[in-house]
């Protein structure tokens, strides 16, 4: 049973009438004039065009089915949240300026030129109301990866200086300090030492040569520091030669989320260089969804050649370690349900890993209705959780998640993404909800069998 704590009115029944649209706010960076912003937005959108993206922009049927897959549209009925509409400006520009019939479109005036007012309006659609979760891509009859196009459109928006203020600040801090929360190497080392004492676990730091490089996300280091200890307990139990490195510990990639490929590349190269330096055979990514997309699927392309080591999400590492008997866990006497991070499962292909882990942990794993690859996003991915003005909308779409979780009636709720966890924690507090998001990795660490190594 849930208990409402009274701090916030629970408006889950009178939802559509109670919906308050997000405040209108168009943030800008830099002092470019309007024409320059428009040119930069469009140029940087089409800069990395290939057959895939061009066919996507040319192939849309305007069937509108993607609206039915998007949590923002499903929860508001606002047609502007139709996923393909979120890239309308860029689709229009492609057809007018780049596509095979651009000349005719311009000659006949079939596609209106994009204005700065358009771009300002689209800031809300490209950032506040898209978590790049990719659910829309699964319903599209043409197979268009709309989420991928949104990421490309963000490249244009970033270069045009049209990113929501908070997300830009976080990305900038990350580029300047190496961490979106300003965690310096010293601070990371301090917190690792603290966790080593607190949990009585050995945490190797800055080892010169190791088979495994483990990395963390700032969200974990700052908000869930027990994750550092849990990582160490698991890798120690598995008997790995491993280390954290102060010169490459931050897995989050706000360059990618905000739309700046240079910052994205710099963040990825930091991890890659650290892994190469110690001769790592495997880099284990933490519980972070977008970190998996950034390094597992985009890292080598940032590097310009294949990576000389394997990249694994922690859930993949755990599944492998448990399946091969490297580590063993005690079964917990509880039913557990799992929230799939979109970038790990739906878009990353590691859906099964967490299920393997959970089947070792419990005899009562409860799949959510529409679980796995069709899971509803937590609403905070793609950088949305950082954008304060998007909070009302994010809380609104979280209702889908609450329903999904509650239908399982599971005792415990876990995930494998600190960003999702943060989003859940915030919405839990907002709604006074009684489900607390837990960590799959921490659950494994808490239930390790001593003789498992």
């Amino acid at each position: 049973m849930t208990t409402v704590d009274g701090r916030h009115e629970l408006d889950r029944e009178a939802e559509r009438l109670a919906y308050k649209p997000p405040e209108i706010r168009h943030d800008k960076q830099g002092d470019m004039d309007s024409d320059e912003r428009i040119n930069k937005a469009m140029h940087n959108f089409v800069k990395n065009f290939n057959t895939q993206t061009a066919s996507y922009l040319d192939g849309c049927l305007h069937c509108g089915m993607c609206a039915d897959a998007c949590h923002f549209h499903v929860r508001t009925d606002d047609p502007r949240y139709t996923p393909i509409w979120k890239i309308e400006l860029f689709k229009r520009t492609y057809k007018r300026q780049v596509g095979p019939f651009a000349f005719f479109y311009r000659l006949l005036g079939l596609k209106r030129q994009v204005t700065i007012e358009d771009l300002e309006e689209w800031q809300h659609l490209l950032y506040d109301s898209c978590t790049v979760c990719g659910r829309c891509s699964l319903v599209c009859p043409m197979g268009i990866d709309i989420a991928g196009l949104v990421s490309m459109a963000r490249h244009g928006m970033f270069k045009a200086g049209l990113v929501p203020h908070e997300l830009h600040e976080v990305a900038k801090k990350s580029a300047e300090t190496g961490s979106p929360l300003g965690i310096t190497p010293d601070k990371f080392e301090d917190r690792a030492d603290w966790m080593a004492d607190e949990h009585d676990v050995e945490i190797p730091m800055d080892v010169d040569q190791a088979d495994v490089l483990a990395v963390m996300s700032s969200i974990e280091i700052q908000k869930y520091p027990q994750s550092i200890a849990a990582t160490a307990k698991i890798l120690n139990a598995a008997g790995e030669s491993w280390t954290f490195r102060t010169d490459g510990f931050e897995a989050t990639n706000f360059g990618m989320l905000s739309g700046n490929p240079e910052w994205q590349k710099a963040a990825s190269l930091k991890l890659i260089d650290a892994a190469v330096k110690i001769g790592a055979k495997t880099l284990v990514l933490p519980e972070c969804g977008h970190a998996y997309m950034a390094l597992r699927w985009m890292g080598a392309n940032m590097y310009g050649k294949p990576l000389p080591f394997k990249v694994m999400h922690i859930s993949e590492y755990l599944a492998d370690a448990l399946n091969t008997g490297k580590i063993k866990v005690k079964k917990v006497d509880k039913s557990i349900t799992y929230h799939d991070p979109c970038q790990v499962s739906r878009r990353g292909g590691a859906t099964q890993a967490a299920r393997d882990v959970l089947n070792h942990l419990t005899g009562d794993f409860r799949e959510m209705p529409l679980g796995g690859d069709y899971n509803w996003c937590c609403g905070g991915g793609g950088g949305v959780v950082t954008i304060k003005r998007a909070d009302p909308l994010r809380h609104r779409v979280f209702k889908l998640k609450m329903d999904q979780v509650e239908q399982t009636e599971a005792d415990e709720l876990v995930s494998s993404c600190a960003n999702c966890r943060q989003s859940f924690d915030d919405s839990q507090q907002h709604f006074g909800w009684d489900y607390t998001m837990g960590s799959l990795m921490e659950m494994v660490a808490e239930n390790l069998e001593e003789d498992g190594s």
Partner: protein
Amino acid sequence: MDLLEFAKGPALQVAAYILVAGSIWRLVGIVLLKEKPDYSEPRQSAGLLAALKVIYTRSFTAAPFKAATLYPKMLAYVMHIGLFAVVFLFVPHIMFFEGFLGIEWPGLPNNIIYLLGVAAVVASFALLVRRLTSPVLKLISNFDDYFSWFATVLPLITGLMIPVRMGLRYETILAIHILSVALLMIWLPFGKLGHTFLVFVTRGTTGMVFERRGAKT
């Protein structure tokens, strides 16, 4: 040269040239764009088979979306199946294709073709009503959507008018039908009707990219 001779001759010939040249231009414009190599380690191999898999599987709606998309999907199936049957399985059309392809194939009885043709027209009008009334579709629709609808439905209607005549001479109504087909052929490469061939590119590339990751397609 009377209207029918014009329709059967120069009109259809020019339309065919535009159809072929326009389609090639559009496809080449897309396919020749630079491709960056993907250096990430694939979870599984995904070449042409992955592309073919998604070209096939995306013809069907994934279970979680079935309820929400049932109505437009059913209409789209009826429209596409009807259109296919009318174009390729109507005996006079097969004879026309045989004229320049040199091969023939079995057709369907005329009554079934008329039935499928009527069903396709009805489904098309239902889709148009949906486009004009759904808030989502009203917002995202543009000239291309409406003109493509018109260019597709017109040959169906003029074709169905041939046995009815409606007071017109057979030669006249046939000429109008052929001219409407020419209009469809001319428009096809330029607008959204290009999905006739683009569907293989979009589904295929998605298949290759996502199957490579082992991700849901």
